[in-house]
């Protein structure tokens, strides 16, 4: 309950900051962005986050699962290490590198556009998803898998009916963490032509106007916090009921 109060207060403060900066009208020699501007940029922001996380999930979950399979588990240090590197490079650097790649890939033309930003965000958001998928699959009691095999489930049936339902809560946590991080990182997208709420923030940065920075940062934080809350509810809802019950001591 206390948690909810804190959350609500936080969201109210963020909305308040947004309203306050927007109603300021003129900020130094600049005009403050209008509500319409904020909505447009927030939309762009969300679209980038949506595609980045969606693609990161589509890559990350199968990848994390795949390297828990016998035979492929030797590749797990490579994959986890790779995802780690992806996240440990400063996000600004990833975005900058992406934008300045002098060549187009076969089916993808890098340059100053939203797609470039999304690719950078995918690389950056992959780690929590891969790591959690891997860990959740690895941590399933081997006896459960053995029973499933012993009863005649095929490999695919075991993944679909046993492993995924058991792993889903932890995978969902990974997706949530990745989403929240990506909302923040997407602020930088504007630097490679990706627009989003970063447009407001960086206008403020370059103009050295704190109010403008706040006008961009507050809605971003609002998005991150509320997406986190929404995904957490989905996580709870999607967790099989039997897993919410604590085991009795035997």
């Amino acid at each position, binding site marked *: 309950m206390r948690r909810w109060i804190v959350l609500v207060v936080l969201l109210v403060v963020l909305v308040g900051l947004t309203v306050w900066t927007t109603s300021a009208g003129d900020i130094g020699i600049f005009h403050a962005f209008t509500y319409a501007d904020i909505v447009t940029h927030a939309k762009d922001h969300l679209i980038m986050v949506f595609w980045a996380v969606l693609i990161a999930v589509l890559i990350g979950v199968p990848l994390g699962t795949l390297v828990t399979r016998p035979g492929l588990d030797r590749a797990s240090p490579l994959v986890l290490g790779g995802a780690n590197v992806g996240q440990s490079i400063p996000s600004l650097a990833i975005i900058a590198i992406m934008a300045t790649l002098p060549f187009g890939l076969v089916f993808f033309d890098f340059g100053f556009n939203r797609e470039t930003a999304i690719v950078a965000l995918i690389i950056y958001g992959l780690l929590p998803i891969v790591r959690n998928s891997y860990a959740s699959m690895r941590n399933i009691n081997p*006896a459960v898998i053995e*029973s499933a095999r*012993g009863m*005649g489930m095929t490999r695919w049936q075991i993944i679909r009916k046993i492993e995924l339902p058991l792993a889903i809560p932890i995978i969902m946590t990974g997706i949530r963490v990745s989403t929240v991080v990506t909302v923040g990182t997407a602020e930088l997208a504007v630097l490679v032509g990706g627009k989003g709420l970063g447009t407001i923030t960086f206008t403020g940065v370059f103009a050295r106007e704190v109010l403008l920075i706040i006008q961009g940062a507050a809605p971003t934080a609002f998005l991150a916090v509320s997406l986190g809350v929404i995904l957490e509810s989905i996580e709870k809802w999607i967790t099989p009921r039997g897993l919410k019950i604590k085991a009795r001591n035997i």
Partner: protein
Amino acid sequence: MIKLEKVTKVYADGTKAVNEMSFEVNQGELCVFLGPSGCGKTTTMKMINRLIPITSGKIYIDGVDNTRMNDSELRRNIGYAIQEIGLFTHMTVGQNIETVPVLKGWSKSRRRERAEELLELVRMKPSEFIDKYPNELSGGQRQRVGVARALGADPPILLMDEPFGAIDPINRVELQSEFLKIQQKIRKTIIFVTHDIYEAIKMGDRIALMKDGELVQYDTPANLLYRPKDAFVEGFVGADRALKGLQLLRVKEVMTATYAAVNMKDNAAVVRERMEKEGIDWMPVMDNNGRFMGGISISSLIGGRAGTVKDVLSPSEATSDVNAVLNEALSLMLSSGLKTLPIVDENNRLEGILTFDAIQEALHEAVKTGGTK
């Protein structure tokens, strides 16, 4: 039903886990794979449903080479229960039991009916448990669900890898007895892996004793105890093998069914005279309907009080029934201090008496002849 022919397992690193094992398990029998850890018992079991691929040799199930069947198809017709149980915690008890029926495409109503029937069989109230989750159950209950799940689609064969191994000793004994009763009803062909000699003797129709991947002796529990093939078997069954044999005998095989008894209304002095003359120091007492009322000992008659037996008899103490296992009956005699244990039926009618002498003789006989079960 299950036939192993020179079954051999060599692992990739060169370890020979099982070496040319050959024997046959008859239909409806419970065959125990027994041996110290690392003897190859679990490996052998898992080659039957091909969880572990065979290196060489053949395993026939109902005459069919098990490598000729599709993996999943083969396993869906062989029940499987393991020590760690491995219940699916995200599914209800009912859904767990219905696992194989679902795989086999049974209709919803048929599956549900089967799950209820099986819960009934393992003595768990369906209405109470079918919608519970595994995490809400006690260890013993989980174990029961594990057994019920293995029986899900009514497979003719059951593989059980130390199924009661994770349970505390008291509950284990109870589960064993219950499972034996269930087996009386269902008569499956069962492979039961254990390293516990007591469990093996109690559960097995036949025991395959293994060591270092070799089959040392494949025999009835009695023969294993009384006709050990070599020093290893003798050592494994232990120096107290005669005592372990008590588990194999039932009261009805050992008790004396003809015995002298007296009526409650008999004259005490007459009875004393008869006991002295025949040298008996204890006699059961019955009422007019043949019901067991208690016993009289010669010492209680000395003193020569007049009157009927009724006045001196010590009322019904410990009794046992014909189906009791001998070690239980003996334990009762030792704890109650009775030299003669009255054996009664459910109506308390005397069926016979059990004495230390008779037990000793029976054990001696069993050791001499190799025993019977």
